[in-house]
């Protein structure tokens, strides 16, 4: 509940600051001013271009490893209670993922040039 309150106040703070500024600041737009910045040269072509597929691979690997990390949190918290048994279990889990990690490494999924 305090978290929700905090979120609301943070949002109000951000929007409030913007709106307060809106009351005072100048607004004199003209086409050259509104042009996207490209070091003084008129922009050429579409800015939202297609980009390297590597970003996609990184995002995919991130999803997998994020899930792995999430699996570790409850394990870490109860480590005291279930001890060695859980440790071996997690070793197997990490080992399986390590295979995938090494595969990705070998296939140069992490390499950028």
């Amino acid at each position: 509940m305090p978290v929700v309150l905090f979120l609301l106040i943070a949002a109000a703070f951000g929007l409030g600051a913007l709106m307060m500024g809106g009351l005072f600041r100048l607004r004199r737009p003209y086409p050259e001013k509104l042009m996207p910045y490209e070091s003084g040269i008129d922009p050429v072509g579409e800015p939202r271009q297609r980009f390297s597929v590597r970003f996609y691979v990184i995002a995919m690997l991130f999803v997998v490893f994020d899930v792995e990390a999430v699996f570790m949190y409850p394990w870490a918290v109860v480590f005291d209670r279930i001890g060695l048994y859980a440790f071996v279990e997690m070793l197997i889990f990490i080992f399986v993922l390590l295979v995938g990690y090494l595969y990705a490494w070998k296939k140069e999924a992490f390499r950028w040039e």
Partner: protein
Amino acid sequence: MVELFFGYLAGAVVVLSLLVVFSRNAVHSVLWMLLMFLHMAGLYLLLNAEFLAATQVIVYAGAILVLFLFVIMLLNITEEMRLEQFTVGWPMGVSVSLGVLIAMLAALSGFRTDLKGPWSIEAVERTTHTKALGKVLYTEYMLPFEIASLVLLVAIVGAVYLAKKRLR
């Protein structure tokens, strides 16, 4: 009070899902979906499942949605989404949705609230949800947990293999 919160969250999830579907701009869809995931996390909080709520935000909002965003930006669909062929298939879509709805309504008759396990609400609150989940997941449900690692392995291999040709 709890009913009020639940009503708001459930209603918001439905409205936001509709917005996701009806947004013309794919990036706006992703934003609505982000908001919807946050409301779903709120629903988990109401159910005392704070670990699931955090996981919902970390994995779905923080990871899977990022992947969506990347794919949308990678494809940069601006012209394609106005094409006819993506809008003519609606009779098929409606019939599939109706079928799913009927199946879900049929499943509703099997819905029971009187089942009780060893983990009552009080027990979960006492041990905290994360620890309760850890204790059960890493003892009773060891096999599904290990199988999950294999599923993740498949995901890694699949992603790397699909992109392999382009990586060189």
